């Protein structure tokens, strides 16, 4: 998809969903003194964007210190608040860089059920292909019905090889074999899909550590990236997800999906403050081109602007 088409699409999506919030801010701040009531309303708006009561309170407290009692327009408030949030997000905006020297750079993709792991892998595969790399995909979700077929279709779409085992096969064993094959074939990137797992299911989480362990038997430095895929519709539970997944595997970064919906994904701000994990990319649609770099200023504006 052409970039302009993408932007118009993104803008369209953002416009619809952010309109209400923007209206709220507009109504609250036209020619108005930034007093307690105004700040409380502003805090509510942040909470509605899923920042969570704590992060919202903190940001507003910072705002109070610098701007309390001033006459401000809606536009100024928006810009200033977006700036404040962008500052929090700036340190975590780091694209995922592939090191070809690893041959292959092993990427393990993890997350709870239904966040969009498989779709994200399809999109990443497309991007790597376009960048002239040779990615190989591993259908490591051997649990969910038709998950393998889903990834295989992405393989066909992107022209990438997909390594799959039988349904119900051991994901760790499959990952081990796949790494061997990918090394022999001199692939640049190995994208390993995993079954969605609730982070509070200990046995399933242990499985993840097993995948990492067996990968390291082939390459002690693998996996070179562990991506946690996070659904933007998720609320404060995202904090628990990140915490537990991090305890189990060395999560190297986040990908936030479904940002083209009405959910604003404000929990990312709380995540940035709490964990400081890099946010590599955001998903804004179901097509291969709908995986974009994470741009703090843009994301922050998306949270509070129309």
């Amino acid at each position: 998809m052409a970039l302009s088409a993408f932007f118009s699409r993104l803008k369209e999506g953002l416009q619809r969903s952010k309109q209400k919030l923007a209206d709220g801010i507009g109504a609250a701040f036209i020619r108005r003194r930034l007093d307690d009531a105004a700040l409380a309303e502003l805090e509510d708006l942040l909470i509605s964007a899923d920042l969570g009561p704590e992060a919202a309170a903190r940001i507003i407290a910072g705002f109070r210190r610098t701007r309390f009692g001033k006459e401000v327009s809606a536009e100024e408030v928006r810009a200033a608040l977006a700036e404040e949030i962008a500052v929090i997000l700036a340190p975590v905006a780091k694209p995922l860089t592939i090191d070809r020297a690893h041959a292959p750079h092993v990427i393990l993709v993890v997350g709870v059920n239904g966040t969009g792991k498989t779709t994200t892998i399809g999109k990443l595969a497309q991007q790597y292909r376009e960048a002239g790399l040779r990615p190989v995909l591993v259908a490591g979700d051997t649990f969910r019905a038709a998950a393998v077929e889903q990834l295989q279709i992405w393989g066909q779409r992107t022209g990438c090889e997909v390594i799959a085992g039988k349904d119900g096969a051991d994901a760790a064993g499959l990952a081990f074999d796949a790494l061997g094959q990918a090394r022999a074939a001199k692939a640049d990137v190995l994208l390993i899909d995993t079954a969605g797992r609730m982070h509070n299911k200990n046995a399933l989480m242990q499985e993840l550590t097993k995948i990492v362990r067996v990968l390291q038997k082939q390459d002690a430095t693998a996996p070179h990236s562990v991506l946690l895929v996070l659904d933007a519709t998720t609320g404060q539970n995202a904090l628990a997800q990140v915490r537990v997944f991090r305890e189990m595997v060395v999560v190297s970064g986040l990908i936030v999906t479904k940002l083209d919906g009405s959910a604003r994904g404000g929990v990312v701000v709380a995540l940035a403050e709490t964990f400081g994990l890099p946010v590599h990319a955001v998903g804004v649609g179901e097509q291969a081109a709908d995986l974009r770099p994470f741009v703090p200023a843009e994301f922050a504006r998306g949270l509070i602007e129309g």
Partner: protein
Amino acid sequence: MFETLSTRLSGVFDRLRQRGSLSEADVTEALREVRIALLEADVALPVVRDLIERVRTRAIGQDVLRSVTPGQQVVKVVHDALVEALGGEGAVGLNLQAPPPLPILLVGLQGSGKTTTAAKLALRLKEKERRKVLLASLDVQRPAAQLQLAQLAERAGVTSLPIVSGQAPLAIAARALETGRREGYDIVILDTAGRLSVDAWLMAEVAEVSAAAKPAETLLVVDAMTGQDAVNTARAFRETVAVSGIVLSRMDGDARGGAALSMRAVTGAPIKLVGTGEKLDALEDFHPERVAGRILGMGDIVGLVERAAETIDRADAERLAARMARGKFDLEDYAAQLRQITRMGSLTGILGMLPGVSKVKAQLAEANVDTAILKRQAAIINSMTKAERRHPDIIKASRKRRIAAGSGATVPEVNRLLKQFDDITTMMKRAQKLGEKGLMRHGLSALMPPGAGRRGF
């Protein structure tokens, strides 16, 4: 979190008590804590506001200060308000009062769990309601989505509509209902593609399907982890299709499930079912009182007790207790007990149902209850004859060797098991001798045989 909310509240009320009177401002302070608790549980802001107002009127009317724990009392007022907002006590069933084939439409966002829910629902209707169910996937968006439903249908032992590639959702729905009529199905479950509430085109499509299929139930499937966006989603779907019920998926996670409240408030539709696991039978009735406790961070205690009850064979347990009381406890009983412990092995999983028990879980992991050893011990007992199990005294050297060989264990291992069993019976005899009073006086340590504390399994 429940503790946190209670502690927070008791802090507020401690200060109040010194002043001796409860003003509206005091209640407001307490409710600020309640508000934060609800927001942290992902209840949507407008819904929180509503609730807080309702609680405020009730809390002020109540004689909060005279109660021993005013904090707890406010929690109860909040809890009751939550139960009410979630639909009152008791579960609401599906509406199955329509001529067959009765269509059920499943809608929701991407990844909310519609397809899994469709298969679970089919299994439930087949098993519990004895209905003949046809599953059909209208999802032509996500790769292999139709195949996923077909595979799940096979696992559930339910028929799925044959896949015709290239067919549009509306046509698939028509074909499903036609097949349902022709082949005498009671219920046709239509699974749809996940769609964002802002996607006008896909929303129009599902409206068309709904208008054509005239479903008896339109179930909105919502992820229990959903945040504030729950209101937007609920509103958009309510405006598009006639949502008649909500299915809350992934309640086996540790999300507090505030989205349930938001969904219920916005759609006005009852929450009918909850998904509680990846297995196809993990679909349960929705009980507002349990989820209210969970939102407040009290955990789903009732659910936990139910699960434990499922795992433990009650008759077995009662028989065992009776035998123990009579001082008759042999290796046969011990083996039965071992079986139960291993079955409860997923204790940490069950604990996962309770938010905020991560600390307990960590402790359990540290305690390192090794179920492998329990299995080994069960194997040793299985290699004994009936007579040996009832009268372990007769087990001497040659019997020990045979038992060890039969169970793949070593003689010292058999010895250890026998010694341990001996300790247990000694402990039981002491307990009987001491009686209840003695136990109170000497504590549990009176039961321990000398040195028992040091020896593991």
